[in-house]
Structures are given as structure tokens and as C-alpha cells.
């Protein structure tokens, strides 16, 4: 039943052999040594300072949504850096390899530039996959993980253990793609894969297998996460947090996760069929024997286009939180903002065909998808106007976070307008597969990156209790923007000049000057990376000076996450507040209720830490690795062990633990003691609230104190 693979295979090691390790490659071998040395230093450092217990207890086994979110973001930032290095290598290859003649570095085995075509193919494939699924997605999922429960007044996600599982499966995907650097090769046929090049006959190596299982793992992790987000928002909202009072970021998280939940299975099925072709010898996407290679493209983009809205919608949500906070105004058109998010999510399902207008399905189909694609411009336009009207006559503060958000708006404009151009099939026939398209979607993805940096700077003080250095945040912003301008505006030009994407040898000497400009842009990007690292260093060094002593770090924030203590204690809210208005914190501040303290406490129910999520994550990595190298015993053993662990955990369950009311009161007192009272905050209070009674904390005491039943104070009334 299994397909015979070309080359040697042994039952014990599968296709693994010493020759698969590229120790002769002059880029990878030194890199491997550096990484091994850095790893040894890291492990030695952790051992020397005796931090293993701390790491294990506080991070590896945690189910706390904030810590999981932080780990997601660290993962995303590391992969953003890896993807950036891939980008740097591609830019350098094109700058060096441009023009006719023999300009290759022979020592690297390259005829043009310094990379052989096969190596270059792996780099652009890894760059795309990493940036979209292992950088943008973890960054956004991490931020949603931290902020969504805080914004709706929940103590944790609905399924804390599932949350940890999602993180560790995503980490397994990251390890799988990283190990492909040093063991074997990665796929060389683009991040979305082309049928039938990825079939075994044309790609006999393990690269495509690495690609399949990395994607499968990250799809699994993200699907689990999206189930969790939806259940959390539906079931875990604080009393009074009606749907109409949900912050816009939470709304965008809901719409994005509906997309993720419904679309990721398409990807998993499509890749499982590719896997069946490569492992079992079926003919789903082959060119002959009844296979249909167009079907793969169709299935992939059936997921792929909803996926791009899955990554853009939370970014829109972040802009919708940052811009009002630094305009000192409520968001303009809250309801249209929410409706626009869902309109984008809905339309995302009927546009996927614009990724292959040139396939040849004729004018009627193309017209439908062209119009549907243009329709996306309407809700997006609504959002942009809403942000603009929020800014209009606002009391603007151009903090670092605000600069990143405004930068995102500019990129959205450029990306959106070029997107409108690409929505027209006639133009698409002209620029299809050119770097014009590449420049367009980089505008959109960089819009996400801008929103993410904005959100990191904005929410950092809430989580860590001190602000990031504003000056270096701004320096990084300007360097990053200069890099974006220098790399991607020439790319638009090159697209018009007819450069197709993924060229390892750009043959036209007239493109040369633009490549040089892009190369300069990449170096400016390097400076912005250094500025980012320096910003982190300076901020951590001066953390005592930058400490935030109030719940509301910026003094003008609006939504519920700014009501609880800074830094957020592990239980989020000592007493779950009662929500009275949209923008609860702004409402309380304006009416002088920020200093309102709960007059009594209740016992709360918290989940226990568990290492099982980490174990299952590690096992899924082994499953992926075993499948890639066709080591069947490893695959089967890890899979069975993972299932056994899952059943074991399900049977054992997690009763959690109860923190009694007295202990809560004590912890709250300690947490509050570290903060200044909000009475002494420099932000002026409003004129007071007239009429009606206000509920700051629901007085209803539904749980019998002292009983071991988990209290349900975090439920929606």
C-alpha cells in the first residue's frame, strides 16, 4: 500500500541518513554551530541560575492564558526574525545575481548570485509559510489570548488546557520547520505548493513532507485555539457584558475565529490528500490517472483566502483599540465597526478564486469573484473612515503605539488600493505572478505587523507593569517604515517592469538599480530589528523608572482590561466587575468610579497546571518528524502515546483548585499595595454620575461560601 520512495530506506531510521545533514553547506554548517553554541549557553545559563524549576512550573506547564499568550508572542517574534532573515537572503541573492553572465559564487555552487536555485526555492517557500502561519498567526493568537479574556472579564479561557495544547502543537510545527534547516531539505515549491510539482515523482525529497506536516500541525493548533476563543466569548463574559458592550477587538477576535474554525479543516483535508498522494500512491492531484491538479489550488485557497482575513481582522481590532485610546474619544461607529468585521468575514468565503483568475475558468466565474473581491472594499472602507472619524477632532497623542497604528492605516490604504486593482481580472492577467502581487500582499501583511507592534507597545504595561521605551519605539517605527518604503515601492515598480516572483536569477540588468535600493531597504530593516532589541533592553533596564502604578497605564484607555491591577494578577480580576457600558473603563473614569473597590470577595476556581499539553505537543512533533522521514515505528508509537495521554487526561479531568474568599482579599490587598490609588492619578475625574444606581460589582452571591463547588461568578447573567 505504501509508495516505494527513491533512495535508501531502513525500518529503524526510515529515510534518515548522515548524508541528509548539510554539513558541507557554507551557510548552514556555521549557522548550525552558532545555534548549538547558543543553545549550550542558554541551557548552561538556566542551569547555573537554577531556573529549570521556575521555567517548568511557571511557563512549560502553565495553563494561564496570559503566559500562554506571552509564549505565543515570543514564538511569533522569533519566527518573524527567521522569516526576515529569509527575506534578507532573497533580496541579497537578487541584488547579487542580477544581470546576464556568470556572476555566481562558485564556492556556493551557484551560477548566479550566491544561492543555488534549489536552495533559493526552499528559502522563499519557508519565508512565506513562516511569515503567515508561524509569525503572524502566533503573534495574533498570542495577543488575542492575553487580551480577549481580560476584555470580557473572564478568569481564563473556557478550556485552559486546550489553550496550552494549541500552543505546544504550534511550537511543534515551529520545531519541525526549523529542524528542516539542518536535517534534510525544505519544500521548494512555494508556501502554498503547486500541483503536481509536490507529487513524489517530481519532488522525491523530504522537503514537501516537512511542508505538509508543518502546515498540518499549525492548522491543528490554530483550530483548537479558535474553538477555545469562541467558547470563551460566548460563555465566559462578565455580568453585564452584553454583546453590544463587547470591545471591538473582541468582536474582531470572534469574527476571525469563526473564519479559522470553518476554514482550517479545508487546509487539513487538502494537505491530507497531498499526503495520500505522496505516501499511499493515490491520484488526487496528479496530472494523470484521473487526478485533478486544479482541485488542489481550489482547496488550498478555499482555506487560504479566509485565512488572510483571519490574520487581518484581529489587526483591525487592535487598531480599533489603540486609536480611540490615543484620540481620547470613543471609537466612531461602534456598530458599523462590528458589522464591517462580520461582513469581511462573510465575504471572505466567496472570493478565494481571485488567487487563480488565470486558470481559465472563463468570464462568468471570474466576474463573480472579481465583484465579490471588490465588495471587501466596502466594509474595509467603512472601517478606515471610522478610524479617520475617531481621529477627527480627537485629542491626539502621537505615542509610539499610535504611530504604529497610523502607519498601519497608510499600508492598508496602499495594500487595499492595489488589491482593488488586482481584483480586476484584466489587470490580473497582466500582473499575475509578478512581484507586483508580492508587493501588494506584503503591504497587507505589514499592516498586520504594524498593528501587532502597536498592540505590543500598547498592552505591554498591562502585562508587565512597565512601559516600553517610547523614544526607541518611535525610532524603530521610523526605521521600519523607511525599510518598508525602500523594499516594497521598488517591488511595485519591478512588478510593472515584468519581474515574475521567485526568480533566483533576475536576468534583466535594468532591474538592477531597484534591487540595490531594495538591498539598502533590507539593511534599514536590520537597523529597525536592532532598535527593537535595544528598545527591549532599555525598557527592561529602566523598568523601575517606567513602572506603571495605576490600573490604566495610558490614562485614556477605554476597555475592561484596564480596570484590573497592573501587572495583571494570575486570577485577572479579584472580583469580576459588573459591566455598565460599552468602554467600561472610560465610563467609570468619566463618572468617577475608577476607585470603586469590591466590598466583599468570593472564593474563585482556578485550573491546575499540567505538563500533559507539553508532552502531547512534543509527541506531535515526533509524529510529524516520523512521517516526514517515514520512520513508521516512531510515528505510530508517538501517535498512540499521544492518544493514550489524551484519554488519560480526559479521564482524570481537572478539578482545579479553589482560592477562598479570605485569601482572595489578602492577595487583592497585596496587589493593590503595589499600585497607587487611582484617586491620586493625574487624570481628571468627570463630573460624577447623576441618576440611577450603579453596580460596580454584582452583589448577587450565588455560591455558598466554603463549599467546594466552583463558583460561577464569571458567567454571563
Amino acid at each position: 500500500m505504501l509508495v516505494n520512495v527513491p533512495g535508501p530506506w531502513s525500518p529503524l531510521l526510515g529515510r534518515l541518513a548522515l548524508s541528509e545533514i548539510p554539513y558541507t553547506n557554507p551557510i548552514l554548517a556555521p549557522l548550525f554551530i552558532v545555534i548549538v553554541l547558543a543553545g549550550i549557553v542558554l541551557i548552561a545559563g538556566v542551569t547555573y541560575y537554577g531556573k529549570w524549576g521556575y521555567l517548568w512550573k511557571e511557563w512549560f506547564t502553565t495553563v494561564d492564558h496570559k503566559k500562554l499568550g506571552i509564549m505565543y508572542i515570543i514564538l511569533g517574534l522569533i519566527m518573524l526574525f527567521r522569516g526576515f532573515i529569509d527575506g534578507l537572503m532573497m533580496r541579497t541573492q537578487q541584488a547579487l545575481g542580477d544581470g546576464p553572465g556568470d556572476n555566481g559564487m562558485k564556492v556556493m555552487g551557484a551560477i548566479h548570485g550566491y544561492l543555488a536555485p534549489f536552495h533559493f526555492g526552499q528559502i522563499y517557500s519557508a519565508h512565506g509559510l513562516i511569515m503567515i502561519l508561524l509569525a503572524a498567526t502566533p503573534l495574533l493568537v498570542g495577543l488575542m489570548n492575553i487580551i480577549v479574556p481580560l476584555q470580557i472579564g473572564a478568569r481564563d479561557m473556557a478550556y485552559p488546557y486546550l489553550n496550552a495544547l494549541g500552543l505546544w502543537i504550534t511550537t511543534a510545527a515551529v520545531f519541525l520547520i526549523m529542524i528542516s534547516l539542518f536535517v534534510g531539505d525544505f519544500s521548494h515549491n512555494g508556501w502554498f505548493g503547486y500541483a503536481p510539482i509536490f507529487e513524489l515523482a517530481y519532488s522525491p525529497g523530504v522537503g514537501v513532507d516537512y511542508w505538509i506536516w508543518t502546515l498540518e500541525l499549525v492548522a491543528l493548533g490554530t483550530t483548537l485555539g479558535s474553538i477555545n476563543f469562541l467558547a470563551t466569548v460566548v460563555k465566559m463574559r462578565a455580568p453585564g457584558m452584553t454583546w453590544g458592550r463587547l470591545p471591538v477587538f473582541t468582536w474582531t477576535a470572534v469574527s476571525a475565529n469563526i473564519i479559522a474554525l470553518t476554514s482550517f479543516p479545508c487546509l487539513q483535508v487538502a494537505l491530507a490528500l497531498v499526503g495520500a498522494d505522496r505516501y499511499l500512491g493515490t491520484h488526487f492531484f496528479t496530472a494523470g490517472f484521473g487526478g485533478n491538479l486544479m482541485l488542489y489550488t481550489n482547496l488550498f485557497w478555499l482555506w487560504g483566502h479566509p485565512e488572510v482575513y483571519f490574520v487581518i481582522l484581529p489587526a483591525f481590532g487592535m487598531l480599533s483599540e489603540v486609536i480611540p485610546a490615543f484620540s481620547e474619544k470613543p471609537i466612531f461607529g461602534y456598530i458599523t465597526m462590528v458589522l464591517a468585521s462580520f461582513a469581511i468575514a462573510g465575504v471572505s468565503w466567496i472570493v478565494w478564486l481571485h488567487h487563480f483568475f488565470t486558470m481559465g475558468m472563463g468570464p462568468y466565474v471570474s466576474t463573480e469573484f472579481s465583484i465579490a473581491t471588490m465588495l471587501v472594499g466596502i466594509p474595509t472602507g467603512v472601517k478606515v473612515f471610522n478610524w479617520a472619524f475617531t481621529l477627527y477632532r480627537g485629542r491626539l497623542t502621537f505615542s509610539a503605539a499610535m504611530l504604529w497604528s497610523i502607519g498601519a492605516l497608510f499600508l492598508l490604504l496602499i495594500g487595499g488600493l492595489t488589491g482593488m486593482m488586482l481584483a480586476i481580472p484584466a489587470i490580473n492577467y497582466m500582473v499575475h505572478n509578478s512581484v507586483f502581487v508580492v508587493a501588494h500582499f506584503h503591504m497587507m501583511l505589514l499592516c498586520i505587523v504594524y498593528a501587532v507592534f502597536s498592540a505590543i507597545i500598547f498592552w505591554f504595561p498591562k502585562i508587565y507593569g512597565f512601559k516600553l521605551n517610547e523614544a526607541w519605539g518611535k525610532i524603530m517605527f521610523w526605521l521600519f517604515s523607511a525599510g518598508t518604503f525602500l523594499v516594497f515601492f521598488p517591488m511595485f515598480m519591478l512588478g510593472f517592469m515584468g519581474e515574475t516572483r521567485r526568480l533566483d536569477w533576475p536576468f534583466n540588468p535594468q532591474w538592477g538599480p531597484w534591487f540595490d535600493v531594495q538591498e539598502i531597504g533590507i539593511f534599514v530593516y536590520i537597523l529597525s530589528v536592532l532598535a527593537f532589541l535595544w528598545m527591549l533592553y532599555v525598557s527592561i533596564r529602566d523598568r523601575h523608572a517606567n513602572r506603571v502604578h495605576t490600573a490604566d497605564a495610558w490614562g485614556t484607555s477605554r476597555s475592561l482590561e484596564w480596570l484590573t491591577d497592573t501587572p495583571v494578577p494570575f486570577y485577572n480580576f479579584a472580583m469580576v466587575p459588573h459591566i455598565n457600558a460599552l468602554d467600561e473603563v472610560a465610563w467609570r473614569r468619566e463618572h468617577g468610579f475608577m476607585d470603586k473597590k469590591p466590598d466583599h470577595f468570593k472564593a474563585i476556581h482556578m485550573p491546575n497546571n499540567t505538563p500533559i499539553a507539553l508532552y502531547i505537543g512534543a509527541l506531535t512533533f515526533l509524529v510529524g518528524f516520523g512521517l516526514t522521514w517515514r520512520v513508521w515505528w516512531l510515528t505510530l508509537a508517538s501517535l498512540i502515546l499521544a492518544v493514550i495521554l489524551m484519554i488519560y487526561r480526559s479521564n482524570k479531568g481537572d478539578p482545579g483548585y479553589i482560592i477562598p474568599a479570605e485569601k482572595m482579599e489578602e492577595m487583592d490587598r497585596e496587589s493593590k499595595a503595589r499600585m497607587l490609588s487611582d484617586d491620586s492619578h493625574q487624570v481628571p475625574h468627570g463630573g460624577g454620575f447623576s441618576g440611577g444606581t450603579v453596580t460596580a460589582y454584582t452583589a448577587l452571591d450565588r455560591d455558598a461560601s466554603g463549599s467546594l463547588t466552583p463558583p460561577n461568578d464569571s458567567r454571563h447573567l
Partner: protein
Amino acid sequence: MSHGHSDPIHHPEVQMATNRNYITGFVVSSLLMLAATILVDGHILPSFGLLLAIIGCAGIAIIAQVYFLLHIDISEHNIWNTVALVMFIPLFIITIGLTWWMFSQLYMRTMPMIPGMPGMH
């Protein structure tokens, strides 16, 4: 919310799940898969008939899985399952329908006629 939160076994979602449902769902979808495999393996029908037969099997399998395994129905006490169903139907029609339409247009222009398929020119 009167049903006890202390014991997850008493949640309506869990109460609705029975072993018999899962086994029925598994058996029905396995049988349909087997039927489709036998039909294709033996080339029992002409090409286009085969296509329709597989689609029919797949359609019934989807309904069986949605009903028996996912417990998605229109009962009143499980409003979120109904919401999921309401979302699922348009998505199903959009994804399968538009794919069908695209491929019929594409095949008309690029592929030789499938034997037994009506309306091709």
C-alpha cells in the same frame, strides 16, 4: 443556569452524547466509504455515474456525521448547535457550489468530455 456546573456530566451537551449515536455514525460513514470504494475499484458504473454515486455517498456521510457525531440539529435546548447548523449550510452551498460551478466552466474550456456526462459540448 440551573443545571449543576460542578459536574460536567450533567451538561446538556454531554447528556446528548450516547455511545449508540457514535457507533451508528461510525458504522454508517464506514459503510458509505466502503460502498464508494467498491464502486470505484470495480468500475461498476460509467464515469459520470460513478461521479454522481460518490457525491451521493459523500453527501449522506456528511449528514450522518453531522447528526450522529456532532449532534448538530435544530432542537431548542441546544441553541448553539442550531447556530452552527445555520452557519454550516450556506458555507456548504458556497464552497461546494462555487467549486462545482468553477470546475464546470473550467472543464468546458480545458478538458475532454467525461463519458456519460450530459450537456457538454
